[in-house]
Structure formats: C-alpha cells, structure tokens
C-alpha cells in the first residue's frame, strides 16, 4: 500500500484551486472554530439553517463537488437517525422529531466546518501551521512518521508474502474467516514488531549522528528538523 491509497478515502483534500484554498491555514482554522462555536450558539431552526447555508456556500467557494460533500456528510445521516429515534422514544413522534432534528443539525454543523477545512487545506499547509503550535520535537516525530509510512507499508507486504509462502493463512480470502485472525497477529505482528525495533534502533543512531537532541552548540549546518520537512 502506498500513500496514494490515502487519496481514495473520503474527507480528503480536494486538489483544485479556489479562493478558500489560497487563504492561510491559520485564518481557515480561526474561521472553522468560529463556525463550530456558532453551531452551539444558534439554537433556533432559522439560525441553524442560515449556518448550514453558509457551510454549503463554503463548499461551493472551495469548489468541492456535491458528491464529495455528500461523502463528508453521510456519516451524520446515521447519527441523525439515532438521535431522532432517541428523542421519539422519550417524547413521542409529535414532540420528539423536531427537537431531534434540531440537535442532529447542530451536531452536523459542529463537524461540517472541520470537514470543509480539510477539503480546502493541503497537508503541507496544515503541517506548517501545526509546526507553530506543536513542540519542535513532537513535530519532528510526526514528520518522521510520515516519512516511514511507505517503508512500513512495504515491510508489511514483504513479511506477509514470506509468511504466506511458509503456509500462513493470512491472504485476503483466508482472513474473511475470523478463525484465521489469530494467525494474522502471530505470523505477521511478531516479525513486524522485531523489524520495527531494529528500524527504531537504526533510525535513532542515524538521527543522533545528525545531532538531534543535543543541547549544546550545533556542529552541523544541516539541522535534522529542517531536513525532514
């Protein structure tokens, strides 16, 4: 599996150019927080519908397709059914449906700006923004984790192939049977964890050699954190 696999998942960045895309991540985050807060403040239907319209306009300004917007929102349809059902069970159909719908709409409007934010903010912009808030060392580990995703995806594939050649039932068809699930953990996870420990050891040596974690004056012109951007 490669990074391209992540691109097929919903709630992803829409790679188009729009006014919203060009705004800095910090401003978009501030706008998102304001919209989320508004979902709690505006409790009447007219206010909530106006806020919903504002979110939809945001999607339109961000040139996000209607299908993609639906993909972002469909999870909340299930939530709506659950919440309305709980209200109906408690208050009856006449008294329960409208409060249930209002609450569901509020929940939707709380999460919708976040989904829009992720649609119009590229990962690089988000990472730059996060680096200002996260401590430098935490940011380093986040960046190094991204670097290693393709490596470990390849490792998983290699170990899985080797174990299947030895007769382990961990191919897709066999894993459809829950009785084979323990095999996945025994045959795949133990070698994988050993591989992870070895890689962590090597990566630590490599990082230390570049002067990471040193508190004294730097002896290198190439700070590790900058290299990993």
């Amino acid at each position: 599996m490669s990074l391209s696999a992540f691109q097929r998942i919903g709630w992803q960045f829409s790679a188009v150019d729009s006014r919203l895309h060009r705004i800095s991540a910090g401003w978009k985050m501030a706008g998102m927080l304001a919209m989320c807060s508004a979902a709690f403040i505006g409790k009447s239907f007219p206010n909530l519908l106006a806020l919903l319209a504002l979110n939809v306009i945001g999607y339109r300004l961000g040139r996000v397709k209607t299908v993609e917007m639906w993909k972002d929102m469909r999870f909340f349809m299930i939530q709506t059914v659950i919440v309305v059902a709980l209200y109906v069970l408690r208050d009856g159909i006449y008294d329960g449906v409208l409060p249930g719908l209002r609450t569901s709409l509020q929940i939707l409007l709380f999460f919708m700006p976040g989904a829009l934010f992720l649609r119009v903010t590229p990962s690089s912009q988000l990472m730059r923004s996060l680096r200002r808030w996260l401590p430098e060392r935490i940011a380093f580990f986040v960046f190094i984790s991204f670097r290693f995703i393709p490596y470990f995806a390849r490792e998983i594939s290699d170990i899985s192939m080797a174990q299947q050649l030895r007769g382990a039932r961990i191919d897709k068809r066999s894993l459809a049977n829950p009785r084979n699930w323990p095999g996945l953990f025994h045959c795949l996870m133990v070698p994988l964890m050993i591989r992870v420990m070895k890689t962590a050891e090597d990566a630590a040596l490599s990082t230390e050699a570049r002067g990471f974690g040193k508190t004294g004056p730097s002896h290198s012109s190439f700070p590790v954190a900058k290299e990993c951007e």
Partner: protein
Amino acid sequence: MKSSDDHLLWGMFSLREALYLSFCAIFIVIAKAVLRLHLHVTGHSMVFTMFFMILARGCVQRKGAATFVGLIAGVMCLVLGMGAKSGPLVILKFLLPGIVIDVAAILYPLLAQRYVACIIVGAVAAGSRVIILGLVDWLVGMDRELILQHMVLLSVMNMGFGAIGGAMVPPVARRLAAHGLIPSAGPNP
C-alpha cells in the same frame, strides 16, 4: 525494549523509544486506512488501534507511552484527513484511549501480558472515545439521559472491537518477552 540513558521529550523517552512509539502510530494509521477501504463497520478500526497502543505500552514501559502513540496517530490522522467525522477533535479521540491505557498500566504494570487485563483495558479505552461525542451532545444542549443513551449505543461496537484488539496483545507480547526483546515484568518509573 532497551533504552539509553539520555532522555528527550521532557525526560520521558529515549530517542529510540520515541521512534518505536511513532512507528506504532504509523501502523494505527495504516490499519485505519486499509480497513476503511474494505469495511464499513462502526468501530472496527479499534481492533488495531487498541492492539498497537497496548503493545506499545507493553514494549516501552514508561508513563505516557500509549498517550504519545495516540498523540502522533491523532496528528497524522488529522493531517491525512482521516478524522473529519470528528474534525480537529480526532487528536482527542486517540489521546483519550492512550491516557486510559497509561493509567491502567501504571496500576497494573503486567497489563500487556495478561489476557483479562488486556481485554478489559481494550474495551474501556475504546469506549472512552465516545466521551468526545458526549461532550458535543452536551454542548448542543441534549438532555443528560439522552446523552447517556447515545453514548452507550455508540460505545458498544467500539468496546467490542477494542476488546478483540486487546485480546490479541498477550500472545505477541509474551513471544517478544520470551525472546528477551521486551522485559517480562519491567519497572514502571
């Protein structure tokens, strides 16, 4: 897992420990992505999330190990856009189970090698994620009774899958301990 004396990240982990924990976070993200492509069952990603979090805490027996895994996984999911169902709260959804696992491991250091403990902690930690949803429900003004019912409904699947993930940890942790790769009953500073 062996550790060196020099500690970074507020004196909590050595560099190789922190890297190992970051790599465990990678597996959570990979598993979440892969399962999302093929399954559409609520809470199913909890199997691997709980597995890697509890195993990470078993391998790096230091306070905050599981929380650190949760933090890195949460930030990665946020950046990759894998948590828009929770928006920016996705970080909290990974942090909370990590905190639960760390607290459990402080109370019971042999956690990763005991079936019952792993199943209970896996279920509770996975269930703790619905606290975020409960918080949102409370903020929008839902009644306490309905919030509780909503949380129970959503936590059942999460807890079930979390327990399965927890149950998978002891055989792996025991095999790693048998090979001397992790301490069988290490200190818990």
